[in-house]
C-alpha cells in the first residue's frame, strides 16, 4: 500500500465514519448485547446473571411462546400472499388508461403513509362488533358480521383483513415495474393470438417478477415482525390470546414483565426464523424470477 492509497483509505473511512459509528453503536452493539443477554437472567435493573441456555429451554415449555409463534405464522401465511396478489392486481388496474388515474393512485397509496397507531384506532371502530362499518356493510348483503374482537376465531382474520388496506408500498413498486414492461411484448403476444389473461400470465407476471420477489421477501419480514396494530387493537392478545403476535410477546416480556433476558432469547429466535424463511423463499422462487439484464 503506497502512502497515497493509505491516505485515500483513511479519507474514505473518515467520510463513511458517521455511518460506521452509527451502525456499530445502534446496530451491531445492540444485536451483540441481545445475544449476550439471551443467555442471562436480566431484568434491566439488576445486573445480568448467567443462566446458560435456560431462556431457550424455557421457551420450549412456554405455551404462550408457541401460541404467539403459531399466530404469527398464520398471520404471515395469509397476509403475505394476499397482499402480494392484491397489490399486483391494483397496480395493473391503476396502470390502465382511465380518467383520474393519478387521483386513484394517490388514494390507494395514502393508507401506507398513515401512522400505524392511528390506523389501529380507526380499525378498532371499523371492526366494532356492534357499531362497526364492516359489520354494517356485511349486514347490507344479509350477513351477520362476527364479533371481531371478542370471538377468538376472528381476531387473526381481522388482522389479515386490516393489513390488506396498506398495500400502497408494494403497489407502487409493482406499478413502476409494470411501466417498464415493453409494449412490443404485448403487441407480439397480440399477434400470436394471446388473450388478456394469457398476456397477463405470460408477459406481465414474468416481467414484474423481480419486484414480486422483492415484495415477497419484504412482506415475510414485515409480517413476522408485525407489532403496532395487534398491540393497539388487541390488548393482552385478545380473547384466548388468539391475536397475540410474536413481536408483541417480545415487547411485553421485556418492558412489562421485566424479563429482558427471555425477550432477547425470543428476539434471537425471531431473527433465525426470518433468516430461514427468507432462505426458503429464496430457494423456492428465485429460479423463477426473470431478470432482463441477465
Amino acid at each position, binding site marked *: 500500500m503506497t502512502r497515497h492509497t493509505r491516505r485515500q483509505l483513511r479519507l474514505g473511512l*473518515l467520510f463513511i465514519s458517521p455511518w460506521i459509528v452509527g451502525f456499530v453503536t445502534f446496530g451491531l452493539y445492540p444485536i451483540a448485547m441481545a445475544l449476550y443477554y439471551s443467555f442471562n437472567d436480566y431484568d434491566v*435493573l439488576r445486573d445480568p446473571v448467567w443462566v446458560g441456555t435456560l431462556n431457550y429451554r*424455557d421457551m420450549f415449555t412456554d*405455551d*404462550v411462546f408457541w401460541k404467539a409463534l403459531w399466530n404469527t405464522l398464520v398471520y404471515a401465511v395469509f397476509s403475505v400472499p394476499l397482499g402480494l396478489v392484491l397489490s399486483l392486481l391494483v397496480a395493473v388496474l391503476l396502470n390502465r388508461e382511465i380518467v383520474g388515474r393519478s387521483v386513484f393512485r394517490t388514494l390507494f397509496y395514502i393508507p401506507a403513509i398513515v401512522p400505524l397507531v392511528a390506523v389501529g384506532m380507526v380499525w378498532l371502530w371499523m371492526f366494532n362488533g356492534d357499531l362497526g362499518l364492516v359489520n354494517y356493510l356485511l349486514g347490507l348483503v344479509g350477513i351477520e358480521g362476527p*364479533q371481531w374482537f371478542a370471538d*377468538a376465531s376472528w381476531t387473526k382474520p381481522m388482522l389479515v383483513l386490516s393489513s390488506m388496506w396498506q398495500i400502497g408500498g408494494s403497489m407502487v413498486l409493482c406499478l413502476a415495474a409494470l411501466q417498464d414492461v415493453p409494449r412490443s411484448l404485448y403487441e407480439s403476444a397480440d399477434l400470436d393470438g394471446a388473450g388478456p389473461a394469457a398476456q397477463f400470465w405470460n408477459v406481465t407476471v414474468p416481467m414484474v417478477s423481480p419486484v414480486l420477489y422483492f415484495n415477497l421477501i419484504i412482506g415475510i419480514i414485515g409480517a413476522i415482525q408485525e407489532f403496532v396494530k395487534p398491540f393497539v387493537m388487541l390488548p393482552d392478545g385478545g*380473547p384466548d390470546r388468539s391475536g397475540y403476535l410474536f413481536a408483541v410477546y417480545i415487547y411485553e416480556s421485556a418492558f*412489562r414483565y*421485566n424479563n429482558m433476558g427471555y425477550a432477547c432469547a425470543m428476539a434471537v429466535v425471531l431473527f433465525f426464523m426470518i433468516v430461514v424463511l427468507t432462505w426458503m423463499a429464496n430457494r423456492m422462487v428465485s429460479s423463477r424470477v426473470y431478470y432482463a439484464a441477465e
Partner: protein
Amino acid sequence: MGALVGWGVVTVLLLAGCGERGETHTPDGRVIIDYWEKWTDFEGDAMQAVVDDFNASQDRIFVRKLTVSQIAQKLMLATAGGNPPDVAGLFDYNVATYAERGALLPLDTRFEAAGMSADDYIPSVWDVCVHRGHVWALPTTPATVALHWNRQAFRDAGLDPDQPPRSIAELDDMAEKLTVVELERGGETVQVRYPELTDAEKQSKDFRIVKLGFSPNEPGWWKNQWGYWFGAEMWNGQDEVTADSPENIAAMRWHGGYTEKYGIENMQRFGASFSGSFASPQNPFMDGRVAMVLQGVWMYNFIDRFAPTLDWAAAPFPSVDPDNLPGVSISSCDVIVIPKGSKHPDAAWEFIRYVNSRQGMERLCLGQRKFSSLREYSDGFLERHPNPYIEVFIDLANSPNNHTFPQTSIWTEYNIELNVAADRVFGGIATPEEALKYTDDRMQWKLDRELRRWEMTKDARLAEWEQQ
C-alpha cells in the same frame, strides 16, 4: 483532523445533552428537584396545587413536576440508565417489583427520623408501601371499589331504590329484573324484562340486550378478581399461587354463568356497543344501559361531569356469603417513591413528607375527590368532600376483607393471565377448572423462577438495604 475534532465535539455535546434536564437551581438559589407523576386532567391539577403550596412554603427546594405517561416503564429505563428523576409517583403494584430489583431507595431511616408511624395510615394503604420488611414508598391517594347502582332503573323495575343487593344471589336476581331485551313475538318487535321471557325464549336466547342489570365484565377492570367476593386469595403470600382454589373456581363459574344465561353473542355484541366509552356520556352506567357496576371512588367525578342528573348511590359490593364475608373490596393506592440514583434524596424526602402531612394529603384528596391515606381527618373534611358516598369507600378501605394487590413481583403478569382465563370462561372456550388450572401452573412456574432469582441475589440485596 479537523473533521475528527468536529465529530468529537458533536459526540460530546450529544452525550452531555443526555445527562442534564435543564436548570439545577432557581434564580433565587433553590435546588430544583424533578418529580415525575402520571396524573393528568383534574387529578394532575390537584397535585400541581400541592406542589405549588410546597414550593411557596420553601426557601431551599423547588419541585418541578413533569407529567409522564407509561411512567412505570419510563422510570425503569431512566433508573437503569442512571438518570432517574429525584422523586416519582408510581402505582402500588410497582412497589414490590421495583424494590426487589433495586430501583428504589428504602425510606425506613428517614421515615423513623421524621417521627412518622405506620399507625398513622389506613392498614391496607400501609401494606402496599412495605416489602420484605422495608418501607419503599409513601401513599398519595388510595381508592376502593364498591357497587354503584342506578336508583331510577331500580324504580322502573319495581325494586326499592334504597335497597341494594345484599348477596351475590340477590344481585343475580335483581340483575334479571333490571335487564330489558328486545325480541320478535308473533311478527312484532317487543321489549320485555328478562323474567317475562318464556322458558323457550330464555333457552333459545334469540333476543337482543337493550339494558342489562349487571355484567361481571363491565367495566371488566377486576373481572379476574371476583374470587375475593367468594372468599378466595390469589396466593399464599410466600411461594404458592392459588389461582385454582375452589373459591376462585366458584367465582369464575359465576362469571361465566352470565354468558350462559344471556348468551355469548348477545353479551359480546352488547359489550362492543360501548367499548372504549368509559370517560364519556356514552358510559353504559351513566347512560342507563347497565344498572349496577363495580366501580371505584373516582366514579363520582365522571358521573358529575358526564351525567350530573343521574340518580345513583353506592354501597359495598355484596359477597356470596354476606354474614361471614362482609365489606369485600379491592383497594389500590398511588404511591410516591425516591428512585435509586436520585440526585437529591433529602430534598425529595422533604417533598414526600409534605405530601404526607395532613394538610398536603387532604388538599390532594379533596382535589382528586378521593379519601385520605391517613386515619385521622381534620374537622370538616368529610363534610367538605363532594362525593356523598365517600364514607362507604373509607369504611371499605378499613374493612378486614379489603384486598390490596398481591405484593409479588409477578403480579403484573399474573393479573393478565387471570384476565385471559376470565375471557376464556366468559367466551365459553374453557371451563373454570381448565382455565384456572392453566393459570395456576403457568404462574407457579413464573413465581418459582422469580424466587430462584431472589435466592441468588438475596444476601447482597438485603445487606445493601440495611446500609441505606
